C-alpha cells in the first residue's frame, strides 16, 4: 500500500517587519509549524534579529496524505508570556503539484496576518518533500480533494485561502 504520510523538510528561514501592538518586535521570536493540531514543531528563538529575525532552522515533519495546509505561527516570548505575532497558512498545493518538482528545494514566502487579520510582516521558508509522489498516491491526493471541476483549468484541487474581513480594514487593501 502506498504510504499514508510523507516526510516534509521545512526550513524556516527568516521573517521581516514583525510587529506586536504596532511596535517592532525586539527579540525572542520563534515559529511554530503545525500540520495537524498535535503534529507541530517549534524553531529556536532568535535572540538578535529584532523585527527581522533569521532562524535558518530545519524541521523534519511527517505530512499525512490528506494534508491541505501547513500552518505557521510566529510568536514572541515576552516577560508576560507568549504573544502571537502572526499566522500564515501554506496550501500544500503551493509546493506539491505546482511548477517545481516537489523533491526540489522550493523557496516560498508568505504574508503574516495577526490575530485581528491585519498584515504583519512576511515569513520566508524553504520546503522539500523527501519522497516523490508515486502514481498510486496521486489518486489518494485527488480523492482527498474530490471537490469537482477545478476553475479555469487550474490544478490546485479547488483549494483557496480565505482572508478574513474585519472592521477597520482599509478599504483599498481589499483589492490589492
Amino acid at each position, binding site marked *: 500500500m502506498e504510504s499514508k504520510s510523507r516526510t516534509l523538510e521545512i526550513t524556516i528561514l527568516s521573517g521581516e517587519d514583525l510587529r506586536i501592538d504596532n511596535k517592532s518586535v525586539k527579540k525572542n521570536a520563534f515559529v511554530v509549524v503545525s500540520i495537524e493540531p498535535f503534529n507541530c514543531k517549534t524553531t529556536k528563538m532568535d535572540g538578535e534579529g529584532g523585527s527581522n529575525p533569521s532562524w535558518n532552522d530545519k524541521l523534519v515533519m511527517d505530512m499525512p496524505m490528506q494534508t491541505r495546509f501547513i500552518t505557521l505561527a510566529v510568536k514572541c516570548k515576552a516577560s508576560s508570556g507568549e504573544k502571537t505575532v502572526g499566522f500564515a497558512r501554506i496550501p500544500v498545493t503551493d509546493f506539491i503539484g505546482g*511548477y517545481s518538482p516537489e523533491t526540489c528545494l522550493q523557496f516560498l514566502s508568505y504574508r503574516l496576518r495577526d490575530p485581528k487579520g491585519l498584515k504583519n510582516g512576511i515569513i520566508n521558508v524553504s520546503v522539500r518533500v523527501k519522497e516523490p509522489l508515486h502514481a498510486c498516491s496521486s489518486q489518494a491526493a485527488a480523492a482527498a480533494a474530490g471537490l469537482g471541476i477545478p476553475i479555469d483549468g487550474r490544478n490546485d484541487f479547488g483549494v483557496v485561502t480565505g482572508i478574513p474581513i474585519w472592521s477597520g480594514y482599509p478599504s483599498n487593501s481589499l483589492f*490589492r
Partner: protein
Amino acid sequence: MGNCCSDVGGGMAAVGGTAASAATGNQNDAVDMFFKSRGIHGLFSQIELSFSASNLQNRDVFSKSDPMVVVYIKERDGAITEVFRTEVVLNSLNPTWITKYTITYHFEVVQTLLFHVFDVDTQFHNVDVKMLKLEEQQSLGEACCALSEIVIKPNRSLTFDLVRREESVTATRSQHQGKLTVHAEECISSKTTAEMVLRCSDLESKDLFSKSVCTADLKHSYFCYIFLGILVILWCICGLILQDPFLVISKLVESGISIPVCKTEVLKNDLNPTWKPVFLNIQQVGSKDSPLVIECFNFNSNGKHDLIGKVQKSLADLEKLHSGREGENLFLPTPVGHDFQNKILKGKLFVDKFSETVQHTFLDYLAAGFELNFMVAIDFTASNGNPRLPDSLHYIDPSGRLNAYQKAIYEVGEVLQFYDADKRFPAWGFGARPIDGPVSHCFNLNGSSNYCEVEGIRGIMMAYASALFNVSLAGPTLFGHVINKAALIASQSLANDAQKYFVLLIITDGVVTDLQETKDALVKASDLPLSILIVGVGGADFKEMEILDADKGERLESSTGRVASRDIVQFVPFRDVQSGEISIVQALLAELPTQFLTYMRSRDIKPST
C-alpha cells in the same frame, strides 16, 4: 524612545564589510545586497585577453615575420576604433604574446572585436608599440568575433583562421594565412572573498584609575575601601569603565594614507567582544598581502570615538593568526615627549574564523554549460493603433525603419541569442483575435497550433510581421497567460534537470488591465529559473507597471497571501531610453545576471567544470 538626538543606533551599525541580513524592506534587495556586500559585481567582469598564433605567413625576406596583434572595437554603426596593441615578437611564425588586453565584459552589450595581425617591418627596437605606424606594416590577416563568443566556450579560447583582405587582383598567393587564438581569463581578484570572525579580549578602559593609587589605598583603613566602592559605583554609572568597542579595517596605500574599508557593528558594554563575521573581497584591499590596519575604537555617541588600540596585519597574517589560534596584542601610539611610542596593551585580537570563498560569476556558469533561453510575447491589443496606419506602434515601415516592437525584439534578442544554444525561441502574441477565433491572450506568433517556436531573431521578426496581418487587434491587456505559459516551460525544464534559465520578454504598449492576475502569475513563477523583462512602448503612463518591478516598491503579493520569493521582473519604458545614451539593452538586462546568480546561489548550485 523619544531621544531627540542623532541616530546613535545608526552610528553603531556595521558598514562595508558585513553581510546585510534582512534588516529593512524588501528581502530580495537584502539578498542582493548581501551578495554585493561580499564584493560581487553583477553587471560586468574584467576579462584579460591573451593571444597566440600559429603558421603565420612569412613576409620577411631574410628572416621571419615579426608579428604584433592590434585589437579594434567595432561599434554598432560600423565605426572601428583601435583599442590595444600587443608587443612585437621577434622572428616568429608561432608567437605567443605576453601583453594582455583587459576589457570590461558587459553582459548586456554586444562587443564586437576585430583582431589584426601585422608583420612589423619598421624599426621597433626600443620603440613604444603605440608609435608604430600601421600603414607602414604588412598585414598578416585579421579575424572578427563577439566577445561573448570567446567567453562561453568551455576552455574560453577561440581559434580563428586569419583572413586577408586583398585589394589587388593578384591572387596567386597561397590562401594559407595562419591561425590566431584568443583566450579570455576573468581577473581572479574580483572573485575571492575572505570571511573572518574577529574577537578581542581584555580590552581596558582608559587608565584613569592608575595602579599606584589603587595599591596605596589598599594599605589604608576600611574607610578607604568604602570610599573606593562609592567611587567605582559612581564611575560605573557615568559609564567610564564600560566599553562599546567596534573595529575599523583600513588599507594602507602607497602614499602612507590609510583608507577605511569597513567597520564592524558596535557592541555595547563588552570588554571581550566578538563581532559578527566580516566579509572582505580581496579586490577591496588589493591583495592578500596588502597591509591592513585594524583599529579598535570605543564608541561615543558624540562622534568622537576613542582609540583603544590597533594592530597592523595583512589578510595573510590574519589567516596565520587563525591557524595558530594566537592573539595579537593591540598597541596604542602614546605620546612620550615629542614622539609617539607604541605602548603594547594587554588587549589582544583573535581571529576565530577565517575562510575564503570564490564566488562564481555569471560567466563561470555559462562556461560550465548553463544556457539562457529566450522567449518573447508581443502585445497585439487595439490600443497600439491600426497596423496599416503610420501612427500605429505596429506600423511596418516599407522603407525598412524598425518600429518600437521590432527594435526591442532585435536589440534584446541580439544579445541573448548568443547564449541560446538552439536559437529556437518560443514566441507568442496576446490580446488579439486570430482568424475565426475568440480573443486569445497567448497565441503562437508563427500561426501554428502545435508548436510555438521560431528560428532565430529573423524568425521572430517574420512571424511578427505575418501575425500582424492575420489577426485583429483586440484587448484587454493581460499578462497572466503568457507568464503562466513561460512558467510552465521553465518548470518542465526544471523537472528534466536541465541547466537552463529562461528569459521572457514582454513588449507592451499599455497598462495591464488586471494587475492582480499578473501579480498572482508572477508570484507563482518567482521560484522558477525565470526572469521577465517588460518593455513599455508608446506614450502611456506606466506608473502602475512599476509596481511589478520590486525594486521600486514592495514585494509582490498574490491574492492568496503568498509573496514572491524573489524579484524576477525588470521593467523599462522604451521612450525613456530611446533618446538617451543608455540603450534599452543596458537598462533591461542590467538586472539579469543578478537575478540569475541569486537563483543559483540560493540553491547552492555551483558551476561544475
